[in-house]
C-alpha cells in the first residue's frame, strides 16, 4: 500500500482583471512605442491567434491590481470553489514570472494580500512552467502529510513592462524609433491575470475532484541559453556577469537589458526539444496518448501548434485535436497563470466525466523547460 496520501484538486479559481480588450484597441491600451503603430504587431496577432485579453492597468497607465492581489483573488476563488475558506488553507505555493517587488518572494506578497494567520509558503519564479513547480510543491506537501490544504497559484502582470516608457531611451529602439521584434512580439502576446488550484488529501464530498496522478518537470537549461528573458542584453544573457545588476539599473536600461525579450531562432530548437521530452515519455509508457481525454497544452502561439502536428502524427503520439482544450483566443496568453485559467474553464464547462484523464503540458521557453501533470477525474463515493 502506498504510504503516501492521494492528492485531489478540489477547487480551481481564475481571475482576469478589467474588461476584455480586443485586438483593435489593445495597442492603444498598452501604448504605442514612439507614438507609431508597431511594425510586427498585426503579424504577431495572426501568429498567436489571440482575439481578446485582459490588462490590470488602464489606458492611462493606472494600476487596477498588483500581481499579488490578482493571485490572492484567484486563491480565494479556488477555495470558494472547493467549499473552503481562507482559514482552511495551511500551505501556499505561489508562482510568477516577475513579482511585484524584486525582494521578497511572490508568495509573501500573495499571503500579505490574503491576510490572516500563519501559512507555510513557497515562491517559484520562472516563466510559464513555474505554475507546475508550485503545483508540485503543493502536491508533495499534501502527499506527505505536511499540509492538509495547499493552494498553488500563479499570477502575471506583464502589461506593466510593456508601456512605451519602459523601452524609451534604451537600445531596443532603433534610430527610426521602432522597437526590436524580440521585445515587441511579446507585447502582442502576453497579458495579465491569475489562476489557482486547491489540493487536499480527500476528494470533495460532492461533485468532481481531480486526482493528481503525477507531475514531471524537465529542464534542459544545461544545453540551451535563455530563450525568453529579462535582465540582460541579448549578448549578455548567458554570461556570468551579464545580469542587469552588474552595471546598475540605469546602464542596464540603456543597453536594453531590463525588458522581456524572446530569441526566435533559438525558440525553434527549444520547441523540438520539448517535443523530444514528450515523445520520450510516450515511448517510456508514462503518457499513453490514447488514454488522454482532455489535453490542456499551454502554447504561446497558434502557429507553433500547427508546426508540430505532423511529427506527432507520424510517431503515433498525437492526441486528437478534438480533445484539446484551450482558452488562448478568449483569455490571451497569461504566462504561468494560463494553465490554471484553462483548467478552471474546462471544469466549469461540464465536459469532464468521472474516470476521464486530463493531461496538462506547460512548455516554457525561458530556458528550455517543460512540465507535465496528469489528472484523473473522480466522483466522491459517500
Amino acid at each position, binding site marked *: 500500500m502506498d504510504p503516501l496520501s492521494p492528492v485531489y484538486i478540489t477547487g480551481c479559481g481564475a481571475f482576469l482583471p478589467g474588461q476584455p480588450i480586443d485586438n483593435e484597441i489593445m495597442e492603444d491600451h498598452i501604448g504605442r512605442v514612439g507614438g507609431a503603430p508597431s511594425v510586427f504587431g498585426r503579424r504577431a496577432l495572426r501568429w498567436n491567434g489571440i482575439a481578446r485579453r485582459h490588462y490590470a492597468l488602464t489606458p492611462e497607465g493606472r494600476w487596477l491590481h498588483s500581481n499579488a492581489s490578482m493571485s490572492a483573488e484567484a486563491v480565494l476563488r479556488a477555495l470558494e470553489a472547493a467549499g473552503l475558506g481562507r482559514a482552511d488553507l495551511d500551505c501556499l505555493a505561489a508562482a510568477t514570472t516577475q513579482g511585484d517587488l524584486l525582494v521578497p518572494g511572490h508568495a509573501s506578497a500573495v499571503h500579505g494580500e490574503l491576510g490572516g494567520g500563519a501559512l507555510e509558503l513557497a515562491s517559484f519564479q520562472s516563466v510559464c512552467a513555474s505554475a507546475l513547480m508550485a503545483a508540485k510543491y503543493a502536491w508533495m506537501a499534501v502527499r506527505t502529510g505536511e499540509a492538509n490544504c495547499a493552494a498553488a497559484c500563479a499570477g502575471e502582470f506583464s502589461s506593466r513592462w510593456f508601456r512605451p516608457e519602459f523601452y524609451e531611451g534604451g537600445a531596443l529602439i532603433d534610430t527610426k524609433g521602432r522597437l526590436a521584434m524580440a521585445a515587441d512580439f511579446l507585447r502582442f502576446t502576453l497579458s495579465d491575470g491569475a489562476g489557482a488550484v486547491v489540493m487536499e488529501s480527500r476528494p470533495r464530498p460532492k461533485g468532481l475532484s481531480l486526482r493528481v496522478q503525477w507531475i514531471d518537470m524537465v529542464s534542459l537549461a544545461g*544545453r540551451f541559453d535563455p530563450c525568453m528573458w529579462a535582465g540582460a542584453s541579448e549578448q549578455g544573457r548567458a554570461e556570468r556577469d551579464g545580469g542587469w545588476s552588474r552595471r546598475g539599473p540605469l546602464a542596464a536600461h540603456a543597453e536594453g537589458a531590463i525588458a522581456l525579450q524572446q530569441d526566435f531562432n533559438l525558440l525553434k*530548437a527549444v520547441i523540438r526539444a520539448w517535443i523530444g521530452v514528450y515523445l520520450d515519455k510516450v515511448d517510456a509508457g508514462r503518457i499513453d496518448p490514447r488514454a488522454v481525454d482532455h489535453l490542456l497544452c499551454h502554447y504561446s502561439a497558434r502557429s507553433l501548434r500547427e508546426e508540430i502536428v505532423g511529427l506527432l502524427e507520424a510517431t503515433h*503520439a498525437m492526441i486528437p485535436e478534438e480533445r484539446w482544450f484551450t482558452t488562448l483566443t478568449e483569455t490571451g496568453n497569461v504566462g504561468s497563470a494560463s494553465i490554471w485559467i484553462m483548467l478552471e474553464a474546462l471544469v466549469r464547462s461540464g465536459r469532464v466525466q468521472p474516470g476521464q484523464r486530463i493531461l496538462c503540458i506547460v512548455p516554457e521557453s525561458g530556458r528550455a523547460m517543460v512540465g507535465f501533470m496528469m489528472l484523473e477525474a473522480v466522483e466522491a463515493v459517500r
Partner: protein
Amino acid sequence: MSGALVIAEPDADEAVAAVLRKLAVVWTGFEARLEAVPLIRKLTRGRFELADYHAFLVQLRQQVKDGALWMSRAASNIDEQHLELRSILMRHAVAEHRDFRLLDADYVASGGARQAIENGEKNLGSEALSAWMFHKASQANPFGLLGAMFIIEGLGSIKAGEWGRRVCERLDLPTTAARFLLYHGENDAGHMEEFQAMLRLVLPDAATAAAIVRCAEVTARLYTLQIEEIAA
C-alpha cells in the same frame, strides 16, 4: 481481405511510428548538444569569424564526400530480398556524390584558396564518424544506417538553412558563398516521407528497429565530436 493482413498492417505502422519516436528523441538530444558546441555557439551568438566558416566547410567536405561512398558500399551489401532499398540508396549516392564540389565553391566564394579545402584533412571526430559509417556499411544488410541517414538528413532539413543564413548575416557574405547550406535547407524537407517509406521496407523487425536507433545515437555523437574538434 484476410484477417491476418488486417492485423499485420497496423503492426508495420506502429513499428515505423515507434522507431520515428525514438529517432526524434535522439535528434532532440543531438540538437541540444550541438547548441553547446563552441563553434555553433559562436555562430548563434555573433562572434563567428571567416576562419571558423572555412574550418567548418573543410570538415563538412570530408563527411559529405564520404557520405555517397558509404552509401554505395551499404547498397552493395544489401541482399536480393531488399532490392528496392538497394535502389533507393544507389540513387541517393548518385544524387549526392558530387555535392562536396559545392562546398569547394562556397569556400572559394568566401575568399578561401581552393587548394586549401582540397588538401584539408579529417579531424579526430571526422575520422571517427567516417570509420563508423564504413564499418556499418561493410556488414550484411546494414539497415541500422537508416538511423545515421535520419541524423544527417535532419541536419540538412532542420539546421543547414538556419546555419547558412546566419553565416551570411554574421560574415556579411552573399548567399552565393553559402550555397551548400542554403540549398540543403531548401531541398531536404521532402526527405521525411521518403525516409518513412525506407523504414517500411525493413520493419517490423525488433532487431532492425534497435539497430536503427543505436546507429542514430552513435552517429549523432560522432557528428557532434566532428564539430567539437573544429578549433573555435
